[in-house]
């Protein structure tokens, strides 16, 4: 049995979902129309399947749970995510994966502005954000760790892989980009380098997963070359101040 969200408020829907999770590990919610905060802090071993358009702050502070969204995501999906997996069969809005520290997010299509900002890693925690199509401005702003993969699939003529100010203030982590990318949109501190063997191995894992989730053609994707975007220095603001 699945929960039907319809046009009910998010409090009611979320309460219903949480009650279901008390006795079940997998809950499905259908006819979602922008209800916010679905799957907030969902813990490990729990899975939430959503049909429709999930509202803002989907999976805020996700705590190891799994979210499968058949539809589009709005703003701040995976905000401050601490682990788990989010699979979006559609596109996502602004500030996707803000401050995410662990876990993986797979988006079939594109994402809007400020995707993957403040992503950070810690010891074995390594966040991964895979985007099927392209990203808006400020992708990876203040990025301090983790991996973003930008596949650039199904781009229309004139569409760029990412918007302006890409990786502004980035001081850690890496972004894998496939095919041509707009160099003019990169921030000054960023350099593009070729992938190491280790990078290729890592990338391969994410692409395979992407293909499995969204039924994409692996060989077709791997035909185009990838580049890696990394910060030139991990301390971009080291000499900004003088003690008074």
């Amino acid at each position, binding site marked *: 049995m699945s929960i039907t969200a319809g046009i009910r408020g998010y409090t009611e829907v979320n309460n219903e979902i949480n009650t279901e999770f008390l006795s079940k590990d997998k809950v499905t919610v259908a006819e979602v129309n922008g209800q916010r905060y679905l799957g907030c802090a969902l813990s490990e071993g729990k899975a939430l399947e959503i049909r429709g358009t999930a509202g803002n702050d989907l999976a805020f502070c996700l705590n190891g749970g799994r979210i499968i969204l058949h539809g589009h995501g709005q703003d701040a999906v995976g905000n401050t995510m601490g682990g788990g997996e989010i699979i979006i069969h559609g596109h996502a809005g602004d500030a996707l994966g803000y401050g995410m520290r662990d876990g993986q997010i797979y988006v079939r299509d594109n994402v809007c502005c400020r995707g993957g900002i*403040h992503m950070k890693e810690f010891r074995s925690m390594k966040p991964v954000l895979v985007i099927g199509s392209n990203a808006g401005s400020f992708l990876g702003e203040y990025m301090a760790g983790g991996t973003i993969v930008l596949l650039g699939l199904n781009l229309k003529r004139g569409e760029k892989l990412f918007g302006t100010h890409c990786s502004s203030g980035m001081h850690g982590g890496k972004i894998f980009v496939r095919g041509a990318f707009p160099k003019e949109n990169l921030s000054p501190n960023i350099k593009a380098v070729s992938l190491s063997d280790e990078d290729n191995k890592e990338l391969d894992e994410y692409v395979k997963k992407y293909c499995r989730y969204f039924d994409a053609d692996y060989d077709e994707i791997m035909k185009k070359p990838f580049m890696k975007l990394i910060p030139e220095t991990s301390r971009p603001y080291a000499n900004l101040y003088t003690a008074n």
Partner: protein
Amino acid sequence: MSVNYIPRRFTVIRDRELCINCGCCVRQCSNECHYFSDDGKTVLSQSDACVACHRCVDLCPTRALRIEKYVCDYRENANWTPQYQQEICRQAETGGVLLSGMGTPKPYPVYWDKILLNASQVTNPSIDPLREPMEIRTILGRKPEKLTVEKKGKSTVEMPPQVILETPIMFSAMSFGSISLNAQKSLAMAAKELGTLFNVGEGGLHPDLKPFTDRAVVQVASGRFGVHSDYLNNSKYVEIKIGQGAKPGIGGHLPGEKVSVEVSNARMIPEGSDAISPAPHHDIYSIEDLRQLIWAIKQATGNKKPVSVKIAAVHNIAAIVSGCARAGADIVAIDGFRGGTGAAPVRIRDNVGIPIELALASSDQRLRDEGIRSQISLVAAGSFRCSADIVKAIALGADACYCASAPLIAMGCHMCQTCNTGKCNWGIATQRPELTKRLNPEIMYKRVVNLITAWNHEIKEIMGGMGINSIDSLRGNRLMLRGIGLSEKELEILGIRHAGE
């Protein structure tokens, strides 16, 4: 030969008759002002790096040391003061943004010193707090608009989460990184004993502080350091940090040198990496967006934790506080521009923001005018130097006050304003193990407890004098205040009358 354009600030004076050349000062000074001469027996000093922290003075067993202001006159000029000239030289040398620690030292008006308190005489009796009950217990949180009761008199209103404090004084946010773990531990232990709260700041929660989480306020700032669902759920309340009084509009930046193994554990970032927490939360561009984050936190904590929003006192503060209240905040903390900091750009610290007295008074009045004062608790911050400041703040409308500099002074801080250098000789604003070990939480927490206990007594004395036996009757009670030497406009904003009226 390089020219030193800036004369030193202080001179260390050593009384040769008293000095026994024990070398205590040599070991204590992280700025390396004291040293043994070539004979290895005589202790000498060179004062260039002295910051007047008094560590050597206070620890000298024979009291042989004294710090003196170094006087080197410039030609008198009320405009081009020595300070501005020296700052220009410093920037000409380095090309850097001037950085300093603690609150602004500039002589802006301190309104606490221009407000006088009332006491009862003849017409209504004062109360003796030593022999009569006196209530300073403070309860923070959103209050229901009205109460409904069932037949037997039991309330049928669902009460939003409340926080009970045994004193209106809480400890303000200071992250592990800006201060040492021992300093944080001292505050945590003191908060537990006093029945109040400490605030972990935006640097996450160190595992050693887990036993104190029921006394902890945890912050969520733009960098999201150490924020995860357990962090939010193991707290007394959650605070969204929008701004800080010492540097409104400026974010946090903990340089990689200060991110030690332990700091990295709490912040959950790699060791040695910069911890950048910019002023804007890029998911908050409006009151509606703030509402979204407030409710996201409430959803992630099962609506069990009050959510606070901390903002810096700036122009139009009253409208901003009203917006925060309407966005669903349970507590709004306003931080005035004299508030302290571990590091702030000097130009921001000394020029941006407004005093807490004015911000608090106008915000409280605005909320009352709009009929939403009971929806939130107001916490005032930004330099409370004594219990009388706290009493005045509560009478201006604060539910509680955040104090940080005062408890730090109790732990040894001497306001040398060089927290940013990370060389704090008192073991407070440093991560160097040889310095942090100087601060023993078992001893220091008692000094903090003593301080607040003394302030609690004084608050009760002052309240008793006014004939008030509950802090709730003092809250927003501006009739207990009178201004001295204030203009009409200042009195109007503070909502108080002039002395003699």
